[in-house]
């Protein structure tokens, strides 16, 4: 192909502009990383804004996926009906025994509460939201939820499924929010070993089983111990079940969460009136704090 001098120069110029654009895009992404590391509000606002815009599409796409999952689940259940039935019968027998014990304890507890003029915990308000986005990235464990500040979701609130803790709300947009799972590398949850009342911090590391760190004292921890939330820091109300200790090797204690991530379709975002996990914001009001310190 023949090219005149002018056209040739234009092509060179064009190439130069392209190179320059490429370089400036590289600089822009590095700048974004640095800005993001500095935790400025602008970045977070941009994130939530875009997430809000994508939320309706993601929501629409999540619904058929959930239906397909239900259908395949049904087939699985049909195939395992017999063994499942046997297991449930056995479990039922065990639970019947527990029910008797619980009834007795409940009656006893009620009498004690009356004798002590105990002030009961207020019933928390909650919002139920659909999981609309789960990128399943190897670099972080978070999900997008289809409820935001207009539904009453606020940063730091605890997210539960059934009775178990899933994580907390890390970012809130108008109609979507980001749930940070307890297994994420950034997640730190104050916990309590239920039987020994030992305090520790549950530290996520992007694996399915987060580990316990900063264990107070030197207790004997054994596999199967239940782990629940602790009230320290006023982040979560005490006693929400999290999981059981799954392994103790070389001083590293790992916890198997009760939550099965792939089963999450709806979650409850609960407002306990506490500050939640929010290190950089105003601490919760003192009277609430005092209450949460009692166990």
């Amino acid at each position, binding site marked *: 192909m023949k090219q005149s001098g002018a056209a040739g120069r234009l092509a060179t110029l064009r190439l130069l502009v*392209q190179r320059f*654009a*490429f370089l400036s*895009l*590289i600089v*822009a*992404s*590095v*700048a*974004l*990383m640095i*800005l*993001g*590391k500095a935790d400025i509000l602008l*970045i977070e606002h*941009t*994130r939530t804004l*875009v*997430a809000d815009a*994508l939320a309706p*599409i*993601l929501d629409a*796409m*999540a619904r058929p*996926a*959930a239906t397909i*999952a239900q259908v395949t*689940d049904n087939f699985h259940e049909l195939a395992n009906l017999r063994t499942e039935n046997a297991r449930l019968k056995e479990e039922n027998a065990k639970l019947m025994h527990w029910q008797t014990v619980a009834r007795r304890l409940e009656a006893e507890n009620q009498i004690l509460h009356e004798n002590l003029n105990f002030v009961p915990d207020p019933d928390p308000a909650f919002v139920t939201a659909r*999981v*609309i*986005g*789960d*990128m*399943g*990235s*190897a*670099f*972080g*464990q*978070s*999900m*997008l939820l289809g409820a935001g500040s207009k539904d009453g979701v606020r940063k730091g609130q605890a997210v539960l499924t059934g009775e178990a803790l899933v994580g907390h709300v*890390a970012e809130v947009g108008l109609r979507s929010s*980001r749930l*940070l799972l307890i297994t994420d*590398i*950034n997640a730190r949850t104050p916990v309590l070993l239920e039987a020994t009342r030992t305090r520790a911090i549950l530290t996520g*590391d*992007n*694996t*399915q089983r987060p580990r316990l760190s900063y264990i107070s004292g030197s207790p004997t921890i054994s596999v199967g111990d239940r782990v629940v939330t602790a009230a320290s820091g006023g982040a979560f109300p005490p006693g929400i079940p999290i999981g059981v200790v799954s392994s103790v090797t070389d001083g590293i204690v790992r916890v198997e969460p009760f939550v*099965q*991530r*792939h*089963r*999450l*379709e709806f979650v409850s975002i609960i407002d306990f009136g506490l500050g939640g996990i929010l290190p950089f914001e105003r601490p919760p009001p003192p009277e609430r704090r005092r209450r949460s310190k009692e166990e």
Partner: protein
Amino acid sequence: MKASVWVKMDTWVRHLVPFGITLFLLLLTAIPTHAPGFSGIAPMLPLMGVYYWAIYRPDLLPAWLAFVVGLLYDIVAGTPLGVNALVMLLVQGTAASQRKFFLGKSFAVTWWAFGLLTAGAIGMAWVLISFIKGRALDVSPVIFEYLMTLSLFPLLTWTLARTQLAFLKEV
């Protein structure tokens, strides 16, 4: 000959297909699959889109659109903003600059090169995120993600090639 408005519009819409498909792949990755074990290690589908179009139609998914795809990926996945933008940008840049090498080569060569490039891309994302978070991340999910991405490549390439034939044969 001057093309009519309709033909222009048709061409314009067809030219949006590569970006649209890559965006669709991104949203597809974000769907909660409800499959056990899968939720931690979804394949990087948008990366394949960026790679494919960088080789076969770099004019329709240029560097800045790869950057936009990366930014959206960061926002949806919750990774630090800028990490995947940089990764996608570099994958696009590398693939587009070597595209003459790929054209007319067998599929195995494309796959092999994709393996190399993805290893570099995921490795770089790992280094960047570890650096930003201040500690080394667990490697095993990253390797699984890599293998998953690599094994889905033939299927995706077939789909993308079909799309290209259907929409972009003449424009």
